[in-house]
């Protein structure tokens, strides 16, 4: 196992990881520029641009630390750079853990096994990196056609698109929230408290016209949900 980690943490993997980090940073900066250029035409004032950026920043802190904490468990198995490339960026914990497990089993071993040859790590790397290109290829090739379909719907009836966007968000998060909340009673408490506090903050922000609260709402709701979920573990 130590031998494996020496390879997985060697300089070439750090170089690969730096290049991938570089691509993601470059893309984020390019899209910030694209959005900034088109902001006035999309009806966003300079002040609203700052607001949107601040809301994105505040809301991303909780999720980012959530990702780091999940990532720690895999660093011990496949080393820092591969974990950084696959879970931190590109994929997510769920898909990449299954890719790692499938890759290892196709070599006839399992993650963390005492007898774990370099070739098994290689099998995992192949499965993770090539398996992950599926999403990238589909998005690269077909986002344009999805955009054209949207344009057609928008032209025939703009209200349909607004409802589809709202319904898609509600459907996805209703499912994700349900799935999490049935895990344990504490998860249910965390989810419900986050939901209720979010609704209260949004109503308060609308009623009193407190625009900063909308920027902070997701961050606050996260802290409230996580704190009550954790505290409830001492009671139940």
């Amino acid at each position: 196992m130590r031998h494996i980690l020496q390879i997985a943490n060697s300089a070439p993997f750090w170089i690969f990881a730096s290049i991938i980090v570089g691509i993601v940073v470059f893309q984020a900066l390019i899209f910030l520029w694209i959005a900034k250029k088109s902001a006035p035409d999309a009806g966003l004032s300079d002040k609203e641009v700052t607001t949107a950026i601040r809301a994105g920043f505040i809301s991303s802190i909780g999720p980012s630390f959530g990702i780091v904490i999940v990532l720690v468990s895999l660093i011990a198995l496949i080393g820092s750079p591969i974990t950084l490339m696959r879970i931190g960026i590109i994929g997510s914990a769920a898909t990449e853990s299954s890719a790692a497990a499938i890759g290892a089993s196709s070599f006839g071993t399992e993650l963390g096994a005492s007898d774990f040859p370099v070739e098994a790590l290689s099998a995992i790397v192949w499965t993770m990196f090539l398996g992950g290109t599926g999403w990238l290829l589909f998005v690269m090739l077909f986002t344009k056609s999805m955009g054209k379909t949207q344009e057609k719907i928008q032209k025939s009836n703009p209200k349909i698109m607004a409802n589809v966007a709202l319904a898609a968000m509600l459907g996805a998060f209703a499912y994700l929230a349900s799935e999490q909340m049935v895990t344990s009673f504490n998860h249910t408490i965390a989810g419900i408290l986050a939901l209720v506090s979010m609704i209260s903050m949004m109503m308060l922000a609308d009623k009193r016209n407190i625009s900063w609260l909308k920027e902070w709402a997701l961050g606050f709701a996260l802290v409230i949900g996580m704190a009550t979920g954790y505290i409830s573990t001492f009671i139940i």
Partner: protein
Amino acid sequence: MSYTTDNTVEMTAPQTEAAEKNTIDIFYKRSHFWGRFTLLVLIIMCFAPPLYMSFILDAHPGWGVIAAGLVGYASFIGIMWVLEPITYYPTLGVAGTYLAFLTGNIANMCLPCSSAAQKAVNAEPGSTKAEVAGVFGIAVASLTNIAVLVVMVIGGTYLITLIPPYIEGAFNFVLPSIFGAVLGQFAYKTPQYGVIALVIGMIILFSPIFSLIKIALCVALTITAILFMEKKKGNI
């Protein structure tokens, strides 16, 4: 004289309209170009680590093992390559799709940050304003995530031991909190649709269906239900 002035007045109206359409068209054109370009570079880059392991480190696991791993992975998760981009497209839009699928962690980071930015500037779901605001949210989230990851991964296990146990315990509840909060954010203006989505989500969660298509099914059914109700109300 009067003939020419009339003529110019008539000419300017469609011209400004065309110019307005063009600037948003430029937004899409730039998004497609840079989105596809960055994805292509990333796809090419994804071949580097596996090729390096097989042919430079000489740790080739054998094509049979690689094929078995990829087929195993594709048969298990391959449907998500297509379903996920389509499911999240209505919320992410063109630019958001390019950003989110490159930077990963879509449900637990990109979508929440996109929606937080949209809500902070009071953008209607599905509108161009929402799409551009969402780009700011996701791009900033992507940069924050990378900054947090790089610091934590380079700082290594040492920084992670600095996180007190109660914070780590609270982070067990980060996912139900994120998902509950985002659900609340979208449900508060149309609570009955939120309830409908939750009911559909719960039914699908406990139905004996292949688990990976559940979320797409929930989105499809919620869209159908909401469009049907809006149509019945005569709104669309």
